[in-house]
Each structure stands twice: as structure tokens, then as C-alpha cells.
């Protein structure tokens, strides 16, 4: 700092100033040139290797073989633009509606469908049929205008997973109903995800409204007093808090297909799943794809959604994303046949019903839980 004072007192010649001036110009040039160069290179690469961008949630796993087949057929690579959990992904897309960050959006579920097809102009109507021979399970289709903008791709029910080994060690009978979850015997054992950010969280909230009607808020208040933990995302809850992943909670809000996932991801160290499903807690969740309005590669986007209904994509879904195919008659892998059951008792809360009340539920839920 002493040397500063001395330099400030001397009056440098114009040469030093010129250096500063040149530097500023160089900085500006570097910045402009840099970004200009980027644009050139990306548009250049588009000609040789076309790209279609798929906006989706973080935990989506691209089925690589199917993606390779798509590349062979169309000459386009699929680039995944992950944007947080499903709720966060959709909001980000809505804020960018008209100037989207990709061509196709995938992962909008029943509980978010009305938001996606609202007045913001997020999607271009497009809802193809599967290729010859296949048909989409009718129960998964959305009614009216929603159905014209969103195509069902898969179904993966949201269920509370139970670490059966943990309960066996403690000599405790695992909870069987939603009522059990507010029982003090199961205090501090459950971790769920927030309906604000996470789509399984919102589906589960809708399920509890379906079960308890007007009294749903009481149930959540009791759940809160019983020590439920809320995490912002599925990753947070399942990968760090669930006892099977090394955490301290033996009950976690996850999917009906999480048990086979444990076997597949264990790479041979597990021959049986560690978790079972709590049937009474399950809520049907359908995932939809839509074409983003203002997409840069709209034509490729259409082809991608069509391809998502083809056998290559549908058959790959169970073991990459642990969901059930939406196209009827798609063969299931053995792991699914053995350990993944779509519970008969799954609640189904219609998208229109969730859509009408969602914002109120979330507001109410936040004032209880946060």
C-alpha cells in the first residue's frame, strides 16, 4: 500500500495510459470475439452433426443404445439439458417460453400438466401415435387440449420405500398405511421430498389430499410433529438420507421401481432388493413429453417425440429410468417382472383436479411444513 501512495503521487506519462486503454479495448474485444467465435463454431457444427436438445430433470438417464439408433435414423445427436427436479425444470422452461433452451421437454407429470399447458405458450401442439402395432395405454392420456400438447411416455408410480432389513433388525413391523406414518412408533423415520420443487413430492401431496379430503392438512401437521424430514429433491432424500444409501431414515418417498433399481445398480453385490414398497402410499405418476414452442430444431423435435414411442426407446426405459413403458405390450425385463409391481391400489388423481388446486395446496403445505 505504501508503493500505491508513491505511484499515485508521480504523474505517469501518456504511455502508461495508452497501455490501460489498449487493455480495456482488448478485454472488450476478447469478450465479444470470444462469444462471436462460439456462435460461429456451434452453427458450423450443426451442419455436420445435427443436435436435438431434450430438456428434462436431473435424474433422467438417456438410454444410450436407443439414442444411437436415433442418431443412425436421423443423423441427429440427442443432447440432454438437465434443469433440476421436474418442478424446477418446468418453471425454468416457462420463464424461457418462446425462447426455449431445447426442442423437446420431457418429464412433465400429471400434477404439472395444467401448468405446462397454461397461458404461457410453452408448447406447440403435437401428439403422435406410436409406430404401427403399438398403442398408448388409454388410462395415461390427458383430456382435451392438454392431450394435444403432451404425449404420455411412461408411468412410474410414486411410493414410500421401506428398508425391510432395518425394520427386521429393530424387530419393528413396517408401517402399512398412511395413518401408520403419523403413529409415534414411526417417529423420525420418514424422509419425503418437497412438493414445491419435486414432482414425486407433489404427486404424494395430491395422494394425501385424495385420501383425507378436507382433512389433509391435519394429517400433514401430525406428520410434521412425528418428525418427518423434507428434502428439496429426490436425490437429496434417496441418496443421502435413506438408510439403504447410508443415511439415517428407513422410510423414503421414492418410486415403485426403486427396488429393482437397487439390484441393477448394485452390479452383482445384491441379488434381492433391500427395499419393499408401502402399497397404501402409492400414487400414479405419468411422464409426458411435449414440443417446445419456438424450438430451434422443431422438425427434429417432432422426430424425437415419435421415437420416444418406438420399441427401441420404450423397451430401454425400465432399466435406464426405472419406469413402466406407456405403450401397451412392451416386453418388461426380468428384474421388473420379479420385483417391480405396479400396485393395484395406486391412487390416481386426475391432472385437471391437481391443476385446479395445486397452487393452493402448495401454499397451504408450505405454511404447515416450513
Amino acid at each position, binding site marked *: 500500500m505504501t508503493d500505491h501512495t508513491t505511484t*499515485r503521487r508521480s504523474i505517469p506519462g501518456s504511455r502508461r495510459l495508452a497501455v490501460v486503454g489498449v487493455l480495456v479495448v482488448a478485454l*472488450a474485444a476478447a469478450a465479444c470475439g470470444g462469444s462471436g467465435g462460439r456462435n460461429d463454431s456451434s452453427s458450423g457444427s450443426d451442419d455436420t452433426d445435427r443436435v436435438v436438445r431434450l430438456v428434462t430433470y*436431473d435424474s433422467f438417464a438417456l438410454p444410450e443404445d436407443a439414442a444411437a439408433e436415433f442418431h443412425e435414423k436421423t443423423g441427429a445427436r440427442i443432447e440432454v439439458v438437465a434443469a433440476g427436479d421436474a418442478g424446477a425444470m*418446468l418453471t425454468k422452461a416457462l*420463464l424461457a417460453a418462446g*425462447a426455449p433452451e431445447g426442442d423437446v421437454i420431457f418429464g412433465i407429470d400429471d400434477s404439472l400438466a395444467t401448468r405446462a399447458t397454461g397461458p404461457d405458450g410453452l408448447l406447440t401442439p403435437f401428439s403422435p401415435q406410436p409406430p404401427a402395432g403399438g398403442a398408448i395405454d388409454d388410462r395415461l392420456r390427458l383430456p382435451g387440449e392438454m392431450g394435444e400438447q403432451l404425449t404420455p411416455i411412461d408411468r412410474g408410480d410414486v411410493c414410500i420405500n421401506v428398508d425391510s432389513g432395518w425394520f427386521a433388525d429393530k424387530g419393528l413391523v413396517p408401517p402399512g398405511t398412511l395413518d401408520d406414518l403419523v403413529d409415534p412408533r414411526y417417529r423420525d423415520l420418514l424422509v419425503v421430498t418437497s412438493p414445491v420443487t419435486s414432482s414425486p413430492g407433489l404427486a404424494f401431496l395430491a395422494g394425501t389430499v385424495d385420501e383425507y379430503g378436507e382433512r389433509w392438512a391435519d394429517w400433514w401437521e401430525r406428520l410434521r410433529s412425528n418428525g418427518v424430514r423434507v428434502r428439496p429433491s429426490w436425490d437429496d432424500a434417496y441418496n443421502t438420507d435413506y438408510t439403504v444409501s447410508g443415511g439415517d431414515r428407513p422410510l423414503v418417498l421414492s418410486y415403485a421401481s426403486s427396488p429393482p433399481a437397487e439390484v441393477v445398480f448394485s452390479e452383482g453385490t445384491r441379488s434381492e432388493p433391500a427395499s419393499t414398497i408401502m402399497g397404501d402410499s402409492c400414487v400414479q405418476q405419468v411422464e409426458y413429453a411435449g414440443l417446445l414452442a419456438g424450438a430451434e430444431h422443431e422438425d427434429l423435435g417432432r422426430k424425437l417425440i415419435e421415437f420416444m414411442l418406438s420399441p427401441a426407446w420404450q423397451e430401454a426405459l425400465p432399466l435406464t429410468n426405472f419406469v413402466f413403458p406407456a405403450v401397451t405390450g412392451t416386453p418388461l425385463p426380468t428384474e421388473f417382472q420379479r420385483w417391480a409391481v405396479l400396485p393395484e391400489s395406486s391412487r390416481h388423481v386426475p391432472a385437471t383436479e391437481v391443476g385446479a388446486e395445486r397452487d393452493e395446496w402448495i401454499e397451504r403445505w408450505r405454511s404447515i411444513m*416450513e
Partner: protein
Amino acid sequence: MNRRRPDQPVGRVAVAAVAVAVAVPVVAVLGRALRIDGAWSLDALERILSNGRTWRLVAVTVAQAIVSTASTAAIGVPLAWVLARFRFPGRSAVRTAAMVPFVLPSVVLGSAIASILGPRGLVDLRATWWPVLVAHVCFNLAVFVRVVGAALDGLDPAIEDVARTLGATPWKAARRVMLPAVAPAIGAAAVVVFLFCLTSFGVIVILGGGSVSTLEVEIWVRATRQFDLSGAAVLAGIQVLAVVATLALHARFARRSVRARRGGRRWARRPDSVGEWTQVLAAVVAVGAVTVVPIAALVERSLRLSDGTHGLDHWRHLGAASAGTGLTVSPWDAVRVSILSALAATAIAGLVGVPAARLVARRPGGAADRVMLVPLGVSATTIGLGLLLAAGRPPVDLRRAWWLVPAAQALVAVPLLVRAVATALRELPPSVSDVAATLGAGPARRWWRVELPMVRGAVVAGAGLAFVASLGEFGATVFLARADRPTVPVAIERLMSRPGSAGFGQAMALSCVLVLLCGAVLAVVDRGVDAFTGSRSDPS
């Protein structure tokens, strides 16, 4: 200063540009709050203001800021005292080191604390206020050390001598004479720290785990998670009011603050007892704890692999976008985007800020001065959300424009540069410019050939500061950065939001890169830090 200086058209244009640049996002946000489906409506206002949660959140936000400020003061004032009072080997190094957490981007400090107080750290305190409090204390200690330290440095040693002669013990002299003399400085520092904690965003997003929240975070949650833009806009309005009230408080303290004294007898002396050496040791340990520990933790976690061994894997993987980490581009791309963006932001801030600083220096406290404070007052999330809303409006959709992020960063950075340059300009002896005028130099020539060269150091320091602030900017950038062009802080948040994945190690490595970048720039322009904290000199 020359009172009859001619008008400065360039400076006026620059100040007007900043005013417009702030007004655009604020108007866009307010428009969204008060207009629903094209008609004026107070629904959103009523909905948010009648919600009990809103007021709980306001209370929690203010309470955490008070607790954070008090905790920081409890450590910061004694620390400033010891560092000002005693001369010991390495004192200036310790003083500089205390600045380190302050210049770290909030997201980086957040990840550092998360690596210690998060999953697989020493103890998992996610979703409690403790990590946030620790981060706030680490971050803001520098403000007390600088501001109170400078005031203590400026004290006349004679007042202590007098007190001792009249029979006061050293402790009593400190408590009854010296501390009251620097009370305005303590107050000013406390208000600055309070303001930082009130609008703290990056550290809470990283450390809050979704359950710890403040107004600023709630704006972000409502806008980007709940898709309640009108609600977010109302909260942003409340936040603006809170900040303006705090700034008014700051102005009162700043007026009463003592000016640092130059020259004369030095107050600092060598410690001469075991007790005094213990105080020095405690100060060194405290500074080490807030400086070395977080960075060491970052480095260690960037090297720790999932199987518990150590290696360079996370660093090697920075070159490629890896599946399952939530990033579309490679982390190195984010570094490149960040540097380019910060350079552009610095260039914009310089082109606007230097002429504006001239105008500000001419009339401190005048209209120009107040306009340049406004970007500090409007919270970063409000600027980000507002720019996004404004950019998406017809006729031209600007959301894809590359310069949107640099423009937002420049807006956040320009007050820092203005402060650094204006302070230096004010210290120029008017006689120099007068002599040049007498010799026949016109106003433009005087500025270019006389004044500008004399404040060159401050311009460079201000630009360095603007660069670092742009590099670490998170609150506005997180709204504006496109998925294929994330800056480093945005990339770190994306990686950190998936604690179970390999992305955590990469986030740590990226944080280290950002520390190195900021460190390198600030090593060159250390002086710039003063502009941040409002103190003017460090005579060590």
C-alpha cells in the same frame, strides 16, 4: 475541488444509463406484481401480505441478520483491536488473510462450509441455521477488521496516555476511552454486515437445504420453483424497502464516522506480556480458522474420491460434461464462460463507472452518488428476475442474447468501481487541476492528461474488484444464465444440488478454480477491497 468545473456530459449519460438499467428490472418486477392478465390488480399484494408465512419469513430474515451481525461483531471487534494494537511479525499478512473469505464468491464459501458441515463432512448440519451462521461470520469478519481497524489506527495515542495517567487500567482505558472513540466505526461496520446478511443468497441456497430460508431465497423459490412470479415480485418489493431502510441507517453512521488520520505517532506497539502474546496468538488462530480451514477443506474434498482414497479424478473430469451431474456443458466450459462474461462486465462497468465516478466525486451525497448506490440496494435476485421478465417482452426477445449476463453483472459491479475511483478523485489536491487550467488546459485535456493518470491505480483496483464481483455473481446470473452457458457459480450450485452424485467433487474442484482466479486478481489489486468495506486506508 474546483467549484466552477464545467458540466460533464459523459458522466451524466453514464449515471442516467445506470438509473435506466436499474429501473428496467424493477419496473418489470413491479409490473408483474401489480398487473395480472393485463389489468391492474392488488390480488398478489393482498395474497402475500395476508399470508402469515410472509411475516414469519421477514422476522426470520431480520433475526438471522441480527444474530449473524452480533456474532461477527463479538469476534470481529476484539480481532480488529488486537490487529490494530500490536505489531508482530506477519501482522500485515494476517490482516490481508482476514480479507480472504470476504472476496470469495458466496457460492464458493457456501460449498466450503458445506464440505465441513454437510454430508460426509465433520458433522452433517444441513437444513439448520448453523452452517449459514458460520458462513456469515467468516464472510463478514473482514468488514469489522477493516473498518474498525482503520478507525483504531487513526486514534490519537495521546488519549490512551491521558487515560492511563489519570489512573485507568489498560482494560478500563480500552473499554471506557478507546472503544467509545471508535463506536461510530463499529456501528457503520455492523450496518454493512447486517445489510449483507439481510440480502445473503448464495450461501443460503447452498447451505439451506431447502428448509432454511430468507426473503431473498423465498423470492427465488417462488419465481423459479413455485412459478409464482407475482408473489415473488411482491416479496422483492418488501426486500427493496428493507434494504433502503438499512442504507438510510448506514448514511447516519457514515457521517459520524471518524476519518483515518495519517502520519503522527503510531499507536500500535509490540506485545510485552504473556497475556498480550496470547491475544495475538488467538487472533492469528481465528483468522486461520476462517481463511485456511475453508479453503483447505475445499481442496481436500476436491481430491477425495467416493471410495475414501484421494486422487485427481474430479479435476480430470472437469474437461467433460459427465452424465448425471446436472451440467450440460463441461465444467471447464463454465470457467471459460465466466471469464469472458466477467471481462465483458468489467469493460461495461469501466466505461460507465469511470465517467460516473467523476460526477460522484464532484458532489458527494448528490444525486449521482445516490443513483450509484441504488444497484447495491436492489437485491441481486430482483435484478435477475426483472431483467429476465423484461428481456422476454416483445418486440425483441433478448433472452438468448449473450450480453444479458455481463450486463447484469456489470450492474451489480459498477457501484464498487465507482466507489473506488470516486474516493481517489476526491483525495486529489485541487491545486493540480487548477495549475493545469492556468496553463491553458481545457476540461477534457485536464481529465485525460492530469486527473485520470493520477487515479490510475484506483481505476485498476476498481476494475479488479468489478471483475471479481462479476466472476462470483450468483443472485442475478442464476436467473439469466442459459443451460448451455452456465457461469462457474451457477455450475457449482447445479453440481451441489445433487449431494449423492460425483458432481460434489467436481463442485469442490470448480470452487478451487474460482478461489485461484479471484486470488490472482486480488493479489494484484488488494487495495480495491477497501472500496467494498468503506474504509479508506490501511497504514500498516
